[in-house]
């Protein structure tokens, strides 16, 4: 299976309006660390522009939110288009966090299915998954460890067509060419949610990534790295 074959890859960067109060820049080319570094830089830069109230990197993209009352979206879009090509890449040395994972078993119940899909043993999946260092590329759907980049392309596993109910708290999951680390389960919130991702393991000692009693509340930032350690593989 060829990896990016079914994912949109743009030849040139595209800037589009995202409603009346935001502009979205989709970067050219495939997902890559060098491009993402440029997106982080652009995000920091644009955040200082007049009228901009927030920015959020995505995977290979940047959303710029403005005050809809004062913003000139056309001018902002033009300025983004002009600025993007000149933004350099370059690494901000992120910190490295190691997370112990029990692959398979309870909370990692999809490991056999993933192993079967790749025609190998569950332990091989654990080895492939824990091999590389993952970089936090973009904020996630809610406060947590964000979208991770770095998974071995051989683990490409198409997202489920029909979502299943899974507990995401402290779970390690994969879908497509991405892997996710769930924050610890919070008492009182939904335990299981519908997802198209495959749960391949659990991280019992995963730290709480976002805690308002801490300053700053976030444990990790964009560019930080996560290394998964195989503590055990349960068949």
């Amino acid at each position, binding site marked *: 299976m060829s990896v990016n074959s079914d994912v949109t890859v743009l030849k040139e960067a595209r800037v589009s309006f995202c409603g009346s109060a935001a502009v979205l820049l989709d970067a050219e080319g495939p997902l890559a660390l060098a491009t993402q570094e440029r997106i982080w830089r652009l995000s920091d830069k644009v955040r200082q522009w007049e009228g901009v109230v927030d920015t959020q990197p*995505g995977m290979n993209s940047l959303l710029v939110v403005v005050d809809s009352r004062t913003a000139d979206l056309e001018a902002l879009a033009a300025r983004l288009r002009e600025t993007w090509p000149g933004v350099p890449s370059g690494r901000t040395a992120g910190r490295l966090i190691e997370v112990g994972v029990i692959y398979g078993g309870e909370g990692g119940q999809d490991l056999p299915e993933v192993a079967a899909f790749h025609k190998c043993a569950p332990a091989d999946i654990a080895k492939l998954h824990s091999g590389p260092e993952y970089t936090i590329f973009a904020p996630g759907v*809610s406060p947590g460890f964000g979208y991770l980049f770095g998974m071995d392309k051989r683990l490409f596993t198409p997202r489920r067509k029909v979502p299943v109910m899974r507990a995401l708290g402290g779970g390690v999951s994969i879908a497509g060419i991405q892997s996710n680390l769930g924050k610890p389960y919070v008492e009182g919130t939904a335990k299981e949610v519908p997802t198209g991702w495959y749960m391949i393991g659990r991280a019992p000692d995963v730290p709480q990534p976002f805690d308002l009693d801490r300053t700053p509340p976030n444990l990790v930032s964009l560019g930080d790295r996560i290394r998964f350690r195989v503590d055990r593989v349960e068949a």
Partner: protein
Amino acid sequence: MIEILETPPLNTMQDLGRVGYRCHGIGRGGVMDRLALAAGNALLGNDDGEAGLEFQLFPVRLRFTRETAFAVTGAHCEARLAGRRLPPWWATRAQAGDELVLSSPRKGMRAYLTIAGGFDVPQVLGSRSTHARDSFGGFHGRPLLAGDVLGNRAHAPFVFRDSAGVGATPAEEAVPAAPCEDLADGETVVRAIRAAEFDSFDEASQTALCRTPWKVTARSNRQGYALSGTPLRRNALLEMRSHAIVPGVIQVPPSGQPLIQLAEANSAGGYPKIGVVIEADLWRIGQLPPGATLRFVLCSLQEARAAEQASDAYLASLRRLAGYCRKAAA
């Protein structure tokens, strides 16, 4: 102070939302009907963005433990104060011990209770909105429960010149919706701007977006509304990368049935976007109950700005008129 005597689940404290925390994956959140909240605040002389209580399930009963100026805006829910019926979009003064009852709306979906001075809860990350998913903000980070006692912050005392209080022309009457040529009775029109993937939809689907009605399904809540209608199809089924999204985005999952992400939307998503409802019309969606019918019209940025100005003008004139109707207490 206000004591909640009875409330169904999922009623929360909300303001205009949390802006500037997307780096943590925190979207805006806040009320579903920004205009109704701002109007309630304008009637009381509060800042537009002061927090209010968003009621989306009824009946709600509460008691004012001391004299309090308050407003009820949004859905027309037959508010009764100490047994007396209040007109829709009305501000008045409750006496200590008065009970306020809000019943299921005859029109609209969400009602807002605002009080003079605003609610006395701390701002969390710059906002008093309840972030239900991660349990912070608002009143202890959770929906309201019977027995909750909510205080208000100090404010310059005032009286209404007319003891009955003061009302506003409801936004749906004062701020006209966009015209739509083949509109049927009871349909709600919202304007949308073409989004990044608009051109990847086939021509029939691009046409269907605006020329066919969309039913609001039961899978509709503060996070988003699932619509049903003519399935929208893309020319090529390319997977999208995860990207940041905004309230109002009209996503099209593989089923072809659109989802509009709303106030409590995730900060990011991965479905293709055919359009984004403009800020100035989002409140119209927030007032649609399941079963209602929605129509989209595409508009330009210029039209979006004009719509925004119309809402602003409405609020400004309301604020001015309400100001005449209050005077500082001796």
